[in-house]
């Protein structure tokens, strides 16, 4: 995943500089504007793959900005970044048209993972594939049947959802909180390494006894499903 154009709408210059630099290091092109109106104008022109929008901005707040864009049918995926990180704030942000919500302070790796996952959604008008494939791993989304190298593997319902999410985002880093949000639909921090244990159970099912692992741990960030044979 590289070469994304990202628009950062953030009034804190230091934070913006850091983000721009970090996105560049990750192989993306990030541009920065410092207030809501400029951000609105920039995003309206289009051409961006993802918007990173601070919620509290001078001249026009982040939620109005996204709401305005959506009214004009500009569907560029938007990640809202905010110091307001409680349940209600998140619900408000997503209702306003945001595609994801990240509370400050955050780890850049978390932001990057979310932005990369968001970018995929752009132009996703085509129906989702009924079969997900990563290397020799094949997940049939109609029958919920998983096979690897032709050999069938049985999954618990939650394991299925976990694997499905990972495979939908194959090749991209998926963080623990992203898994908790998307697979379990919880937005709190479980404090214990619950996700790690779930993932390691899944790993023992899909990777054990096979030469090349597909489920990788990305140190300090999360997990990634990738065909390592290629």
């Amino acid at each position: 995943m590289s070469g994304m154009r990202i628009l950062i709408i953030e009034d804190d210059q230091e934070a913006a500089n850091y983000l721009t630099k970090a996105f560049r290091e990750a192989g993306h092109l990030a541009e920065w504007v410092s207030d809501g109106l400029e951000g609105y104008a920039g995003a309206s022109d289009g051409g961006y793959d993802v918007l990173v929008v601070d919620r509290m901005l001078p001249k026009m707040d982040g939620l109005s900005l996204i709401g305005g864009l959506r009214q004009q049918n500009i569907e560029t995926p938007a990640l809202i970044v905010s110091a307001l990180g409680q349940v209600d704030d998140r619900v408000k942000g997503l209702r306003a048209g945001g595609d994801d919500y990240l509370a400050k302070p955050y780890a850049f790796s978390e932001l990057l993972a979310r932005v990369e996952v968001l970018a995929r959604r752009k132009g996703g008008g085509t129906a989702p594939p009924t079969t997900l494939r990563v290397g020799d791993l094949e997940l049939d989304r109609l029958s919920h049947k998983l096979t690897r190298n032709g050999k069938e593997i049985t999954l618990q319902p939650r394991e299925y959802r976990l694997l499905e999410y990972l495979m939908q985002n194959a090749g991209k880093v998926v963080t623990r909180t992203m898994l908790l949000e998307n697979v379990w639909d919880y937005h709190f921090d479980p404090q214990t390494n619950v996700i790690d244990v779930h993932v390691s159970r899944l790993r023992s099912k899909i990777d054990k006894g096979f030469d090349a692992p597909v489920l990788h741990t990305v140190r300090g960030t999360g997990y990634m499903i990738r065909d390592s044979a290629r």
Partner: protein
Amino acid sequence: MTVLGKLFRTTAFKLSLGYLVAFAIGASVVMTWVSWNVGRLIDEQIGATIEAEINGLSEQYAQGGIRRLVDVVERRVCQPGASLYLVMNFQGQAITGNIKGLPPEVLLLPGMRETTYERVGEAEIDRRALARIFLLPGGFRLLVGRDLEDRESLRNVMGGALLTSLFWLVVIGALGGLFVARRVLRRVEAISDSARTIMQGDLAQRLPLAGANDELDRLAGNLNEMLERIQELMAGVREVSDNIAHDLKTPLTRLRNRAEEALRSASDPKDYRIALEKMLEESEQLILIFNALLTIARLEAGGERGEHVAFDLATCVRDVAELYEPVADEAGIDLVVETSGESIVRGSRELVGQALANLIDNALKYAAPASGRRGAIYVHVQRVGDKVEASVADNGPGIPAADRERVLGRFVRLEGSRSRPGSGLGLSLVAAVASLHNGVVRIEDNEPGLCVVLVFPAAAGDAKSRSGDAKHDHSC
């Protein structure tokens, strides 16, 4: 002047002034009415006297002619306190009598009237009288009258009394008003002074009570109770902020120490890397504490409500338990979930889920008992009357009875648990979530171990069909 000015502006003074004016007007009306009536009564009595005399005199005239009449009149004139008499011939000339100087028109017309007159043998002093002219057969006229001096002097006395009493009324009323106003003013001033002292920060101060149990005392009493409540809240806030300061400063200090340590003694990039990673961990911990604090604060302020929907508590509990099940398994702890009965509640699935997660997380930390038994956590959902109870019990060391209430408070970490990870906010978040849902938290003894019971009011209505659906929906 300022004291007087203040006095004039007081409500008490204005009130007493108003009463004073109203009372003075009332008194004047009453006394005027009384004096007018007394005057009328006197006039009537005089009229009756005159009538009687005329009757007597005309009888004398009828019996003895003009000579007898003149005799009788002359005799009566000499008596002390005599009435006024005048006998005239048909030409209007006086034959006898004790008055003169009557206006001519009075003499011509018969009937009762008020008139001026002079007394015979007196200097020319205008006097007033009520008189009646009576035509006698034979063309003679008889005038009988009474002096009105008595009536006038009575009127004067009454007028004087009215004025004097009005004067004293005003004086006494004004003084009384002044006294009352000053008394009230002094107490209000005292209350106001105390209020100012309190505003300047001395919250321990209380408003003075006069002990009269009147409106002012009750007002001051209520304000004092309000102050008491404010002081309690302030103390609560202070305690919380002290705790926040402590629990945030401890990890902040560690963070700082690590940075200093790395700057001072790290020699190669690997050392720096390790130090930075440790610092990141510390900052993660800080963020966790901070988030928990914010959530609790917003829950308690009622600002955080989540999306309130009807959901099956049993499903929610199974979901959270499922999330933790692998962790429990790895730690060698049995996680047993039992649900029974209708368990639909209204509220935020997210917040209740978080509260349950906190409880299971806690139970996981303490379940492994010291005695070497296998750790076990029992999660139980059941319907009790119109409530739904979710309990999380472990077989760990539990909490001494004396501390059970306390652990729901913020940052309370009992002795022996300080060495374990955690913010000390878990249970107070649970308590805040429960009270947001009109529920309660009970802390019980699991013998051995701890049992935390969350009690929610059961949702009424179409709960049955929802629960049926929910049982198959593992996503909750």
